[in-house]
């Protein structure tokens, strides 16, 4: 048998199967981060992402908040972009222009089961490989965590979406709830195929010279290294009780952050803020770092380290 080229070898080591999707690497572009056009989604894939999430899309077009929508804080950023998006119809049209079979997952938000049930038929021919339900945005009224903090509401939404598609459905959860495990379990019990943990933490910054909140929406979501210990905790807790795969998100920018998430129980990681600090090169750097870690620690495949820390 001919020997496989080193690159092929490495990619098979890195490849993961999540909820029926086979990804070339366990690193994804997080929802809402640059994924607003096919060209930007493709660029993330070309840069090494195993899958890419789109902006969160709602039933109707929506402008985001006025600027400032993003502000730096210590070890992170606050954002209140405000779920600006072209609406499900216009966005699906854009996606249809995509050539090739690409691992694109569409992020959706809505105010409740009705809105989600209205969206699903409009998505039928969209060439996406799955959906992630943003039940966790912390700064837009009536959607996101406002629906995602109630496990009954979560069950209803997931049920509706599952009825509307055969593609895998991930539920993205918020740390701004009393018990994140309960939410994840509610989603699993009605057929969710995976959990993404976590979205940003509801937060705020006030400038002392300006004497006012900086974000035009006052409240925003905290992302970046500051939240990684919270994200790792959620991934660990959720993966302890659910059987469906968990995707880790929050503060991943170095390879060791990604490995920490995998050890905590994540089957893959998503990168948001890391794109601001490391650029698109972040995916390649993470993939190479994970690969190096696997070799140095004698593992054959990424899957072998998923959840390894639970044995202690």
């Amino acid at each position, binding site marked *: 048998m001919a020997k496989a080229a080193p690159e092929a070898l490495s990619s098979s080591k890195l490849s993961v199967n999540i909820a029926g999707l086979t990804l070339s690497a366990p690193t994804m572009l997080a929802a809402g*981060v640059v994924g*607003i056009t096919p060209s930007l989604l493709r660029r993330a894939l070309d840069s090494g992402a195993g899958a890419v999430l789109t902006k969160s899309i709602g039933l109707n077009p929506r*402008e*985001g908040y006025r600027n*400032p*929508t993003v502000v730096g804080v210590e070890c992170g950023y606050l*954002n209140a972009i405000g779920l*600006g998006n072209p609406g499900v119809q216009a966005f699906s049209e854009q996606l249809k222009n995509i050539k090739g079979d690409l691992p694109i997952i569409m992020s959706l938000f809505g105010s409740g089961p009705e809105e989600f049930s209205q969206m699903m038929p409009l998505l039928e021919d969209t060439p996406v490989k799955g959906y992630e339900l943003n039940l966790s945005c912390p700064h837009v009224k009536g959607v996101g965590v406002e629906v995602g903090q109630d496990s009954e509401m979560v069950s209803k939404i997931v049920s509706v979406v599952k009825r509307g598609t055969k593609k895998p459905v991930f539920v993205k959860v918020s740390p701004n709830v009393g018990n994140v495990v309960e939410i994840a379990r509610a989603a699993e019990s009605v057929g969710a195929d995976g959990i993404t943990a976590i979205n940003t933490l509801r937060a705020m910054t006030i400038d002392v010279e300006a004497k006012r909140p900086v974000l035009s929406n006052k409240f925003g979501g905290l992302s970046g290294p500051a939240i990684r210990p919270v994200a790792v905790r959620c991934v660990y807790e959720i993966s302890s009780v659910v059987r469906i795969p968990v995707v880790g998100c929050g503060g991943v920018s170095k390879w060791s952050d990604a490995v920490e998430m995998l050890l905590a129980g994540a089957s893959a990681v998503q990168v948001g803020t890391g794109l601001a600090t490391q650029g698109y090169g972040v995916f390649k750097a993470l993939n190479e770092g994970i690969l190096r870690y696997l070799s140095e620690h004698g593992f054959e495949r990424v899957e072998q380290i998923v959840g390894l820390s639970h044995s202690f």
Partner: protein
Amino acid sequence: MSVFLTPSDRLRIVRVEESRVETQTARTVFFRDEACLNAKPGQFAMIWAMGADEMPMSLSVMNDEGRSAVTVKPWGPGSNLLCSLKPGELIGVRGPYGNNFTSKKGSTLLVGGGSGVAPLIPLSQELMRIGAKVTLVLAGKTSGDLMLLGDAERIIKPPHRLVIVTDDGSAGVKGLAPDAVRDLLSKKAFDQIYSCGPEKMMRMVFDMAEEKGIPMEASLERPMECAIGLCGICVVGKYLLCRDGPVLDSKQLREVSKEFGFTRLDRAGRVVPL
């Protein structure tokens, strides 16, 4: 001991030191900010007009005895407020962000329209410093719309050349900037072209540059939110103008040929005509 991931992302609140009249409505707003002093021609800052908006603004002055400045034309609430601020009032600054024009020796044509002349002033200065030969086309609707004219006249002395163009001929040559460019290109060989201004104007200049085979760099404008490569709203082709731009070169402009001069995203992420 503050720990910011990228120091330039820390918001600074600074005082307006001077608001210089450029046209009836446009102003050049001076302030003091350490980080902006070392910005390069073409880079922009995010300027927060509190209560109204935060906007990307090319730096028109990097370091004038410790002061930096942006030159603002009022369009909406943010730029209107910025133009109305009195010395002593506060603005927010983050950045500088983005790439810069690559300054090279040679015979150089700079084409600026409206507030787009802002980055071309410091760029002219740098080009002259490194020994390039500069021809700056400064365009506006009328003589009253010419921005940074005083600065341009002060710094551009023979053998360099300043070409004023107005739609109505109330100052300089009568016509649109592309007309003046066509004329210049037909008379003289240029090694490079730099442009900033209305995108339709830049597109016309680019098409001429392509015809003549002259390399060009253009500074594009798009709505911006994060300015750090996260929100995606500033996309042109596969490029994020806040990071990969705002300056694109000929190769990149060719790649984004379908969008350059034609479409952009609005703040809902919809593709809209320019």
